[in-house]
């Protein structure tokens, strides 16, 4: 590595001082010099040759302006070996060396750079991308101000068990901090801020260290339960030339991912025994589907047992029109199998609602019902952030990845099913199919409510959308909680990319960027990405609309413009009603009115096709048709739809 010029100047200055002192001694009277020599041990004086060398005119300084091999190039070699498709980042000077190497040395390919307008957007886009493509994204941010922006989105990804690979720029060597800006952007332990909700981090002090830690981080991140990881990239390592020795010896370590942990065979056999013997087994599906393989496996297990399935809507786990979908009745079950279910306690207990005083909870399961969990969550825990939910007393806890365990569980069940059990299961399946049909009829009846009302109902929004995308290769890149799950209640979800699930930690501001990230993943397959965009969510970081427009990411966003942070409005009403006062004031601080925000104009300002605001339901169908034409040409489009609250 090249030496610091500043360091050599300092040394030269020091020697100059020493030589000047020695020269002064030389011209002193000899007697005095002898006196001093006798008085204390003499320090060895520089020889005349040394004095001449050090006090003569210094050789002209050779300032090193360029290098053909900054350390960042090697970092790029390492990171390219991890096969990222894209880098999502808002620019930051603390990783400028890496950025330059990626776009020039790395050719801005594999990964290529996606310009983000906020670090929270970068991470949430990575969150959405992973849920479609199953591949993590490389994100970059300042170790200080960038990470502070990114932190909520990292927590969402953590709670949603989504891997995100985050590089933080940081200048650890104080001598290299060139201004107050760089001091303000430097940090002793950058990853500490998010250590409670990431799986692993490191701050390498050499390029060799960087290589090992970068690969190790990837391996840890991709082992279930998958979580975000952080690697700090020291500015000096990025920007200074590689040493001759490093050039000769450094290499990129090989990456081999561990096989996901599958359930212990004895425990799986015990689970199968309970499930096959049960009269009313139910399956509760949480974050089961890690890969497209999970859906057919879960269908096979449910059909093998003819068990009702309760999908908690975190992932695309199960086909929505399957006769066993959402037919589970936990309160009537004698065996409950929970697969990667966060807060399983909540699925098996009631609690006093928010609009009542006190707290009373009771199990909703029958006495004697057996509870089985299969979750990789049992293999990794943090303590500070409490997304793990309440402790649930279960009868069999299998610490393993559910998807990896499903094949052996299916096989074990199939082996145990006798003709008698088969007959009983088939009878149960017929009853559950009737329940499924009744549920669908009920949903259709409820969808009629307010059909012609203005603002437009969320059911009508979902139905009008379906009318025009059902024959396309579509992908819903939005959560559906805030629109009463209407798409999940009406549309025919079958394929792994049909639905991306929710936020993870319910951190609002996730929706818009996650949709853009997911739509980018869908782009190469030519899919139509549909985003139902909540208004409150978009206002956190609307610059992501520009990212979609700039990078030509096809995405139809339809605003769920209910002009409020509506969930909070309802909470405030609960609180005011409990306190017996001021219900008429509950719009304060939660509504987005006066003035109304015009999202069609907002989208236009960011360079995107848009229409609206629309509040007449009969205008919606033509607006969707026109917007879809834009999306099919490879561009994003937005419809500003004024909607009923939910």
């Amino acid at each position, binding site marked *: 590595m090249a030496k610091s010029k500043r360091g050599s100047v300092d040394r030269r200055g020091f020697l100059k001082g020493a030589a000047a002192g020695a020269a002064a001694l030389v011209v002193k009277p000899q007697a005095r010099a002898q006196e001093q020599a006798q008085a204390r041990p003499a320090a060895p004086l520089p020889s005349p040759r040394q004095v001449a060398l050090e006090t003569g005119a210094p050789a002209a300084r050779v300032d090193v302006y360029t290098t053909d091999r900054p350390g960042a190039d090697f970092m790029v070699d390492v990171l390219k070996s991890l096969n990222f498709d894209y880098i999502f980042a808002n620019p930051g000077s603390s990783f400028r060396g890496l950025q330059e190497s990626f776009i020039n040395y790395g050719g801005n390919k594999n990964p290529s750079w996606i310009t983000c307008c906020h670090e929270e957007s970068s991470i949430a886009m990575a969150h959405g991308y992973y849920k479609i493509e199953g591949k993590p994204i490389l994100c970059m941010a300042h170790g200080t101000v960038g990470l502070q922006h990114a932190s909520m989105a990292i927590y969402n990804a953590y709670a949603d068990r989504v891997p995100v690979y985050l590089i933080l720029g940081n200048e650890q060597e104080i001598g290299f901090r060139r201004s107050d800006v760089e001091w303000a952007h430097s940090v002793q332990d950058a990853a500490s801020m998010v250590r409670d909700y990431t799986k692993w981090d490191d701050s390498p002090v050499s390029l060799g260290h960087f290589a090992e830690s970068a690969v190790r981080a990837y391996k840890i991140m991709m082992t279930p339960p998958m979580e975000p990881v952080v690697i700090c990239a020291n500015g000096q390592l990025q920007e200074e030339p590689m040493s001759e020795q490093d050039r000769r010896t450094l290499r990129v370590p090989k990456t081999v991912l561990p096989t996901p942990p599958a359930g212990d065979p004895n425990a799986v056999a015990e689970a199968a025994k309970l499930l096959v013997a049960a009269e009313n087994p139910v399956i509760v599906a949480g974050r089961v589907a890690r890969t497209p393989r999970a859906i057919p496996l879960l269908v096979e297990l449910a059909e093998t047992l003819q068990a009702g399935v309760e999908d908690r809507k975190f992932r695309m786990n199960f086909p929505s*029109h399957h006769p066993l979908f959402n037919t589970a009745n936990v309160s009537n079950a004698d065996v409950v199998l929970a697969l990667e279910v966060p807060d399983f306690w909540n699925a098996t207990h009631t609690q*006093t*609602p928010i*609009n*009542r*005083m*006190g*707290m*009373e909870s009771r199990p909703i399961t029958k006495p004697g019902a057996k509870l089985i969990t299969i979750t990789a969550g049992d293999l990794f825990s943090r303590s500070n952030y409490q997304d793990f939910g309440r402790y649930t007393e279960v009868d069999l806890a299998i610490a393993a990845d559910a998807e990896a365990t499903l094949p052996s569980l299916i096989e074990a069940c199939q082996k145990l099913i006798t003709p008698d059990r088969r007959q009983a299961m088939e009878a149960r399946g017929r009853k559950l199919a009737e329940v499924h049909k009744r549920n*669908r009829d009920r949903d*259709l*009846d*409820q*969808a*009629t*409510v*307010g*059909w*012609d*009302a*203005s*603002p437009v*109902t*969320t*059911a*009508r929004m979902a*139905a*009008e959308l*379906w*009318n025009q995308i*059902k024959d396309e290769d579509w992908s819903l890149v939005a959560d559906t909680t805030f629109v*009463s799950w209407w798409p999940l209640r*009406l549309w*025919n979800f079958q394929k792994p990319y049909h639905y991306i699930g929710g936020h993870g930690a319910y951190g609002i501001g996730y929706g818009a960027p996650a949709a853009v990230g997911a739509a980018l993943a869908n782009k190469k397959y030519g899919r139509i990405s549909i985003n139902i965009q909540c208004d409150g969510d978009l206002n956190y970081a609307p610059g992501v609309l520009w990212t979609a427009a700039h990078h030509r990411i096809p995405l139809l966003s339809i605003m769920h413009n209910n002009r*409020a942070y*509506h969930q909070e*409005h*309802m909470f405030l*009403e*609960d609180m*005011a*009603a*409990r306190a*017996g*006062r*001021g*219900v*008429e004031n*509950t*719009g304060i601080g939660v509504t987005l009115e006066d003035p109304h925000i015009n999202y069609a104009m907002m989208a236009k300002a960011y360079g995107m096709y848009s229409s609206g605001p629309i509040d007449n339901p009969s205008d919606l*169908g033509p607006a969707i048709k026109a917007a879809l034409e834009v999306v099919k040409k490879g561009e994003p489009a937005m419809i500003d739809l004024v909607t*009923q*609250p*939910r």
Partner: protein
Amino acid sequence: MGETILRVLMRTAALVVPVVLSAQPAPGGDATKGKDLFLKYSCYACHGFSGQNGPGARLVPMKMTAAGFVAYVRLPRTRQMPSFSAKVLSDEQLTDIHAYIKTLPESRPAKDIPALNQFKEQ
């Protein structure tokens, strides 16, 4: 306040409220005022502007009498609905809201809505 004591008080109130209401029979109510109150008190937040959407109960068609409606709002039996006391909404105001809800149109049946028929066919 302990849960048990609260529940006893609420059950007692449930017995008392109908008596009070029957002593002061509600007139028909003013639907125009009721609409303003429906919006002012954010009934729409849970029941939608049409009185039928969202996480709250479907209010249309309104099958309760005005007195029954008032009693229900004071002491709802569903877990989602908060209890609105007379300090928040008077009987008269609730009666007006009831009158407004009675004016809201019912939905067309699904079979009469082509965009919903598509789901029947799946």
